[in-house]
């Protein structure tokens, strides 16, 4: 009797242990990660119930981190400042593989076919392509723009045709590299302008834009017509004659396209710039509380959410796109670093680094739906990025 009971207990223990090993059957469409920059960990979160599922430590220096997703949206590729590239399984919340691929890295992107994950590096300057399954190096393109001179790479974006577009900060160029033959990438170079600091591609993958720090304006490359070269647009965009100090470079990624207009951070100015994307000319400027860092459209394009550089980084403002007016000013906490919308935009998750929390807002009512504790949270990345061009 006792033996049988013991056996039964052991059996159930065994079953429990088995359960702990095997992930519960579920999708990954509502999962994501929150970067904890000071501790080198990520929290795996789910945005249906707005909970944290657990933490994955051991990811190195995440002081400037980026996350991109595998084609099946199960794995997060986490790029760290220290050149670390870590493949994290969202379901088991474990590290599948981790490599140190460079000395100083800022991000990366996944190819159109999902087979390559490409890192963009400051040191050594250039890009490297890895097998998305094994993280083995497939090929690399050093950003050697002149003999012995290497540039920091910014603004990497995947675009159709197994191509990646990126800008060279030190060289003032935009490069397009075709990985159709993964081991033998082919690169085309375009002069772009002085000190491109970040880049982005339109959601359809057609236009690549690089913001210029060293001069006013934006470098625009039409990837349907690369033979036409880079065109300079928005000459009034930039720091202008006053050369205002910029305390944090804006991030152009996650920029906002809404109703035929693009909403961009005006560098060094307390303004969001509205650009007519038919003519690529300035349509309006929206005054805001500080120097914008992220200017992000709710997925339906009706609202644009903006956060700011130091010292105004405790605020978030919401712009109504049809009227181009600020309709809400929020104070989500100290040092707001990033915002991420749920796939259909009902909620937005906002990280406040110095208050160690993530706040989930309802985007219609602006009510706080939830706050989650996190250690010095920065980037928030949901898995639906897996299906988007340029993320």
């Amino acid at each position, binding site marked *: 009797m006792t033996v049988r009971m013991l056996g039964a207990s052991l059996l159930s223990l065994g079953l429990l242990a088995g359960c702990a090993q095997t992930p519960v059957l579920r999708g990954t469409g509502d999962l994501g990660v929150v970067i904890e*920059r*000071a*501790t080198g960990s990520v929290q795996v979160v789910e945005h249906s119930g707005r909970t944290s599922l657990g933490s994955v430590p051991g990811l190195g*220096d995440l*002081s*400037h981190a980026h996350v991109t997703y595998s084609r099946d949206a199960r794995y997060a590729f986490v790029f760290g*400042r*220290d050149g670390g590239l870590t493949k994290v399984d969202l379901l088991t919340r474990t590290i599948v593989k981790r490599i140190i691929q460079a000395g*100083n890295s*800022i991000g990366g992107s996944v190819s159109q076919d999902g087979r390559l994950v490409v890192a963009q590096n*400051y*040191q050594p300057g250039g890009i490297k392509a890895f097998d998305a399954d094994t993280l083995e190096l497939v090929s690399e393109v050093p950003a050697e723009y002149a003999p012995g001179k290497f540039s*920091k790479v*910014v603004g990497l974006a995947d675009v159709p045709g197994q191509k990646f577009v990126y800008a060279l*900060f030190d060289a003032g160029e935009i490069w397009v590299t075709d990985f159709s033959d993964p081991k033998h990438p082919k690169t085309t170079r375009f002069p772009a302008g002085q*000190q491109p*600091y970040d880049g982005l591609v339109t959601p359809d993958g057609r236009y690549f834009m690089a913001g210029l*720090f060293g001069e006013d304006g934006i470098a625009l490359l039409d990837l349907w017509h690369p033979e036409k070269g880079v065109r300079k647009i928005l000459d009034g965009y930039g720091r202008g004659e006053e*050369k205002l*100090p*910029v*305390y*944090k*470079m804006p991030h152009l990624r996650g920029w906002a396209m809404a109703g035929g207009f693009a909403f961009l951070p005006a560098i060094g100015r307390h303004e969001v710039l509205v650009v007519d994307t038919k003519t690529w000319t300035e349509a309006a400027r929206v005054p805001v509380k500080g120097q914008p860092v992220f200017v992000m459209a709710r997925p339906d394009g009706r609202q644009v959410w903006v956060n700011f*550089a*130091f*010292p105004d980084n405790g605020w978030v403002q919401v712009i109504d796109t049809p009227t181009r007016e600020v309709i809400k000013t929020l104070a989500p906490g100290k*040092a707001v670093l990033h915002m991420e919308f749920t796939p259909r935009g009902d909620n937005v998750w906002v990280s406040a*680094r*110095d208050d*160690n929390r993530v706040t989930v807002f309802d985007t219609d009512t602006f009510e706080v739906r939830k706050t989650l504790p996190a*250690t*010095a949270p920065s980037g928030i990345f949901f898995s639906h990025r897996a299906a988007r061009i340029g993320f």
Partner: protein
Amino acid sequence: MGFDRSLWLHVLVLLGVAAVAASAQAEPATERQRELVNMVRQDCGSCHGLTLKGGLGPALLPETLRDKPADALVATVMMGRPGTAMPGWAPFMNESEAAWIVQRLMQGFPPVAAQMELSK
């Protein structure tokens, strides 16, 4: 003439060093030191990296700063460096605070206190 100029240069440099040394002695209060450490790690860190190993901006480690004169570094912190992305931080600190930051950077910069506690 040439002698005069170099003499003046020496005097100016000495005065500058003396000023930096004097201001460095006037240490900011403990609470302010914490704010400054946080500002350097987090906000300067936007470009120079949280670990100060460099990013879009150069590394700010003792070995990379060793050969640079402290007063020139203080001037860079306060007024920025024209032609580069380095802004002036004078709106957010005074010169003695900048001198304290430079001195600490050259010694090896302290970590952010609050986050060290949290990570334990």
